[in-house]
């Protein structure tokens, strides 16, 4: 039986025949990931310091680069794939990402609203102090 349906431990390189045929050597996987990560890091530092780009767009560019680098780490260092032996690991990861997004986006959204709705101007503060 080549079609083994066992799960794979997270962080382990796939041993299925299909994956073996498609991918590089194990050393090659780590090296490609390393080169990609170095490139993305270098681009991030360049983007942050260059004056060539439209300044308001830089933050978004940095976020995109960070997401790309996270993907590189997940695929090449942690060996997360879409293979059927990896479903449990991907589902756990997806849930983790969901919680992280809820915490980050939700908090930023709420705090931004609170800031804009509850800021007290100096005139309002004076009125309060006179009461």
């Amino acid at each position: 039986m080549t079609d083994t349906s066992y799960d794979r431990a997270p962080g382990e390189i796939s041993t299925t025949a299909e994956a073996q045929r498609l991918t590089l050597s194990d050393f090659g996987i780590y090296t490609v990931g390393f080169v990609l990560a170095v490139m993305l890091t270098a681009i991030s530092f360049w983007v942050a310091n260059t004056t060539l780009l439209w300044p308001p767009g830089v933050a978004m560019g940095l976020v995109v680069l960070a997401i790309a680098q996270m993907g590189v780490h997940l695929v090449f260092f942690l060996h997360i794939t879409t293979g059927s032996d990896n479903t449990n690991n991907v589902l756990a990861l997806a849930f983790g990402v969901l919680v992280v997004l809820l915490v980050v986006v939700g908090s930023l959204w709420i705090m931004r609203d609170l800031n804009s709705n509850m800021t007290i101007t100096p005139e309002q503060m004076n009125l309060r102090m006179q009461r």
Partner: protein
Amino acid sequence: MSVAVAAYDAKRETFAPASEAGPASKRIVVAFGFWVFLLSDIVMFSALFVAYAVLVRATAGGPAGAELFNQVSVAVQTGCLLVSSYTCGLMSLAVSQRRRTDTYLLALVTFVLGAAFLYLEVHEFAGMIARGAGPQRSAFLSAFFTLVGCHGLHVTAGLIWLAVMMAQVEFKGFRPSVDRRLLCFALFWHALDIVWVWLFTAIYLMGVRP
């Protein structure tokens, strides 16, 4: 593929469907459990992270990030952690192929680079505290020291763990329990690098922009 896993899976290769395969091997269960722990750790980091993002403008008249952060030092730190993540990956390969000398060598490189990262971070913290920008100065700095310091503590724990694992390889050899711990360590170390990607992007690179 790794020898240890090959030996382990060879026994089970004849089975067909997952429903008849029985419980997963201990290696898979342990690594998956650790994976879930790592994800919860990242959820904790996201809370500290968003606290920083909310408080980043709350400098209370004190210094802001642009005056405090040194990009060169951050670039070197990033390089240290990235290369150590790579050597950690190569160490996993050496472990699975039972190359003991390579394992020690790569673990040593990983350890030295991790320690260099920590040295630079402590140096940066000491410099900031010396110029009156300690965690008690403003909400921004409290959040900064909590977030970056928490990552630094994780790196410290990782270094101790790595040293312990090398002692275990020396005295216990590559037995399954040691293999599982080394797999978990590799997961931990790579996850720390992912956290650092977000830290250097959001704190240092976005922070130094005017």
